């Protein structure tokens, strides 16, 4: 099948490659852009490890094709920290032991960034609900929930 050119902005940088239409955005980010922070767990939309921001909203990068992101602005986990400083969310994950093996962490961190932007003062129930789209097999989630609470406080939205 015909390969197609695709141009998009990833973490503020313009990327242009020729890709097979069936290549997912996740594979494109990892293989063509060499941004391997976006992880692939289940590759069918269940685990959330591949979550990225697409034009300002969190999406599964394994559930869309790279060609569909033509002209889009994508932010991966690599694009969150500015000037080498961790974001409050990243800092909170470290402080609260929100990760162990780290495989799921990029997906959680991107999802939590999107969630707190939408809801800066979440209740614990809302946090649990928001995290339901990401699977972690190490932490038992408690550290992650605490990390979201801490990040919300740090970012000034605390109740």
């Amino acid at each position, binding site marked *: *099948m*015909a390969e*197609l050119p695709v141009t998009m902005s990833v973490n503020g940088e313009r990327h242009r490659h020729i890709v*097979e*239409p*069936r290549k*997912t955005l996740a594979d494109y980010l990892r293989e063509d852009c060499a941004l391997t922070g976006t992880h692939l767990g289940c*590759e*069918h*939309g269940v685990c*959330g490890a591949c*979550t990225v921001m*697409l034009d300002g*909203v*969190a*999406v*599964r990068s*394994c*559930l*869309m*094709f790279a*060609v*569909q992101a*033509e002209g889009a602005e994508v932010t991966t986990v690599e694009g969150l920290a500015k000037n080498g400083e961790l974001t409050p969310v990243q800092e909170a994950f470290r402080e609260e032991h929100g990760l162990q093996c780290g495989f799921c962490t990029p997906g959680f961190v991107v*999802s939590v960034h*999107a*969630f707190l932007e939408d809801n800066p003062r979440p209740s614990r129930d809302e946090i*649990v*609900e*928001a995290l*339901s*789209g990401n699977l972690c097999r190490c932490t038992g989630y408690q550290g992650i929930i605490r990390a979201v609470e801490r990040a919300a406080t740090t970012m000034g939205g605390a109740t």
Partner: protein
Amino acid sequence: MRKRSAKPPLALPCRPVKPAPFEYHAPATTADALAVLAEHGDEAKPLAGGQSLVPMLALRLTRFGHLVDLNRVPELAGIERHNGTVTVGTMTRQADLERSPDAAAVPLLGLATPLIGHFQIRNRGTVGGSIAHADPAGELPAVVLTLDAQLDIASASGTRTVSASEFFEGTWTTVVGDDELLTAVHFPVWADGAGFAVDEVARRLGDFALVGVVCGVELDGSSKVTRAAIGLLGMGGTPLRAAAAEQALVGTAPTDDELTEIGRLAVADLDPPADIHASTEYRSSVGAHVVKRALRTALERAGG
């Protein structure tokens, strides 16, 4: 001396979780999309939000020679309210439906949509995609059936409108033909003061529901039910209406015991599917309870 045979190479089959190759079409108008569908027939598939289709492609449960991406057809998205109807364009994102003030006139949409997958899924997933995919455990298909929505189906030769009761044929199967596209859904607005509820049992938040109910009731001045609609999801190959339970409910101001009976009646004639997560008996038993619980909520919300 016999040489020990070399260890055979690891015989791991190479099974990449990737879709089979396809040709990609990104039309800018509905007419162009329909033209591609007309040309390629069952070799072509519309790609909406991709939250169900892409996994099915990736797992190679299905394959198509042509994918027709609808994400660049602006005219297919949008929510409008006029004359007792809320019309939702097929490519409206579920997240947009969730937040739409216009869609609030149909409370079942706002109650059911947050139960679809997770927020990351709803950011991408579409209303029409969910309905046309027709998963028997899907929330929006059940809302469509329960509210007797009307569905616009277009092809290169014109548009037809079908009723919800005719739309769903079986698991993942609807009356939408290979060269057709579900373009919009019309949801009727019920009277002020009507009460609605959506209730489902899933193993985790955002999982497919094992059993679910969507329902609506209208009451008269003496709290008697004048109108009732009860839809079930996960209880058969398509969403189902509990017609006998609806009839039993109308004209009554049901007591708690009567609601228990109506819950039983709603699942009495069903033969729900059994799978690794729930047996037929479990689905029936839980289904009866969930119907009761949802009706009680809807009646309370209606001021009953």
